[in-house]
């Protein structure tokens, strides 16, 4: 499987920072939240992970930082297998890994000062370092003594970003980092993340359901459906010539700002809800909602294969 990915995935010409292989997460009760996910992430690169709620994208992100223990598969980070390490052995690697959370307020302990939050549980930083970080993310060093409730949502998210940068990470998992913010603030935070990436050479695993934000941020995009990646490739391919019918449906759900185009464009409307990840349908898990579905889709599950430079899991692509 990894040999094939290397062949087909254009980003993998560089030594990947993170390699995810056949990652699986089955929760108690048999919910297969993540059902065999593979991707590579090069240093300094951004991979967008998109999909509906419940498709397993957040679970994937949480497994990458080992907040959740995968029930199967491997996570190779800088050549080391994270899944084999105990939490204690993982400590040295934790400096290279960090995470930005969705809800800026629930991700900041209301009883800690900004200094305590940013310098983290292991109290890594001096006053000056915290001040520098706060200024780096567009706050002021004087904010270090305050408490989270004294900030706006956008400011609070900047504190969360400063915390994520504190250990000098190489990979930051961004779990819906802007979806809880006002639209006007979203752009500021997205630009801040892009600037930080350019300056510090960070790799982002950017989890989001907002396709336009992902398009802005991510050179590569993976589309997830029911715990599996259905299409992964460069941004231009995914957005320009989507090959999977689910990707096309997702993209067609994005409104176009031009009313004339909006009125005439073709929309693919998905009917119903995603099937339960407890009992995914046989064959292609998307077939019950796919407008192109044929007999083969109901019986045989499509694997990812290269189509026009990207990978798609669809028999018909």
């Amino acid at each position: 499987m990894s040999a094939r990915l290397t062949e087909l995935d254009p980003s993998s010409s560089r030594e990947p920072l993170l390699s995810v292989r056949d990652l699986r997460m089955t929760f108690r009760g048999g919910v297969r939240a993540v059902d065999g996910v593979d991707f590579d992430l090069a240093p300094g690169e951004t991979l967008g992970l998109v999909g509906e709620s419940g498709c397993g994208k957040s679970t994937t992100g949480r497994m990458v930082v080992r907040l959740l223990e995968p029930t199967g598969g491997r996570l190779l980070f800088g050549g080391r297998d994270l899944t084999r390490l105990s939490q204690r052995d993982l400590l040295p690697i934790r400096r290279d890994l960090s995470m930005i959370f969705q809800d800026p307020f629930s991700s900041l302990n209301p009883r800690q000062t900004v200094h305590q939050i940013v310098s983290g549980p292991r109290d890594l930083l001096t006053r000056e370092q915290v001040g520098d970080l706060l200024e780096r993310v567009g706050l002021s060093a004087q904010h270090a003594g305050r408490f989270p409730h004294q900030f706006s949502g956008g400011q609070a998210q900047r504190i969360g970003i400063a915390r994520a940068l504190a250990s000098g990470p190489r990979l930051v998992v961004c779990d819906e980092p802007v979806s809880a913010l006002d639209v006007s603030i979203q752009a500021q935070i997205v630009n801040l993340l892009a600037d930080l990436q350019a300056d510090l050479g960070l790799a982002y695993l950017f989890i989001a359901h907002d396709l336009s934000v992902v398009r802005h941020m991510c050179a590569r995009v993976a589309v997830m459906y029911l715990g599996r990646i259905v299409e992964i490739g460069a941004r231009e391919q995914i957005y320009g010539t989507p090959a999977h019918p689910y990707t096309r449906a997702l993209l067609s759900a994005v409104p176009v700002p031009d009313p004339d185009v909006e009125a005439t464009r073709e929309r693919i409307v998905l009917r119903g809800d995603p099937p339960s990840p407890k009992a995914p349908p046989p064959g292609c898990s998307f077939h019950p909602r796919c407008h192109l579905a044929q007999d083969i889709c109901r019986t045989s599950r499509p694997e990812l294969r290269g189509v026009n430079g990207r990978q798609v899991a669809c028999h018909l692509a």
Partner: protein
Amino acid sequence: MTTTPIEAAPPRSPGRLALARLRADRPAMAGLVIVAVLVALSALAPLITWWTGWAPETFDKSAIDPDLGGLPRGAWGGVSAEHLLGVEPVTGRDLLARVLYGGQVSLLVALAATAITMVTGLALGLLAGYLGGWVDTVISRLIDLLMSFPSLIFMIAVLSVVRDVNRLVLLVTVMAVFGWTVIARIARGQVLTLKHREYVEAARVGGAMTGHVLRKEVLPGLTAPILVYATQSIPAYIGAEAALSFLGVGVRPPTPSWGQMINNARGWFMTDPMYLAVPCFFLGLTVLAFTLLGDGLRDAFDPKEEAS
């Protein structure tokens, strides 16, 4: 109170904000003052009885009228410069001394029971909530078992069977055995919601181990509900001690206790109502004061207000 703009406000932790709200809460502050006075009076009981000259066990035959079956001499149950709250019928023991020493017993039992239940309940609740799995199952079933037990009947049975031990220690032990369950359940529930908060996850991503997460991230989030519950459980323990002593299985004479005094006064309330009124007043005042304080604390720590 005027509102100041956020930028000008000095950093105030949620704890300080709650304290400020508590200060502005008049009933709660009244409760706090009464509690402080009662605690001081009970603690200083030896000093006060030394000053009045009447110890709780000292009989005063001159203060009662044997011709009237032992009723106190004078109006209001024998209130005089000598006996500020009157005397006990038949024996003539000083009611002020007895009520203050009784307060010592009540407060001591209630505070000790609260302290023990808080520590035990917090520890077991934290473990059950955070670790989950079989630890949670064992602790939760134990809580269910103890909660479904008719605890008062059990306490009466145990207290009346066991004889040659320190009654106070026994009382506290029996009340603590049943009392920790509620705190454990509150703690467990809070931990279940707190452990999936993103700030707890952020600490884990930052390399925090279980002990650190529990102490620094989860426990501070529990202080408010636990403090509120503890303050509200003190009057319940005072009431329980009084009830058990009233039923004759609590504190044994000659050690005075409010419940025991109320029990003794039952037979006299037609002829000497003051004998009943004095311990009832102190019991009622103490319970009321702690309840006011507990309610004030609950309002001050209200999470809905905390977000502002």
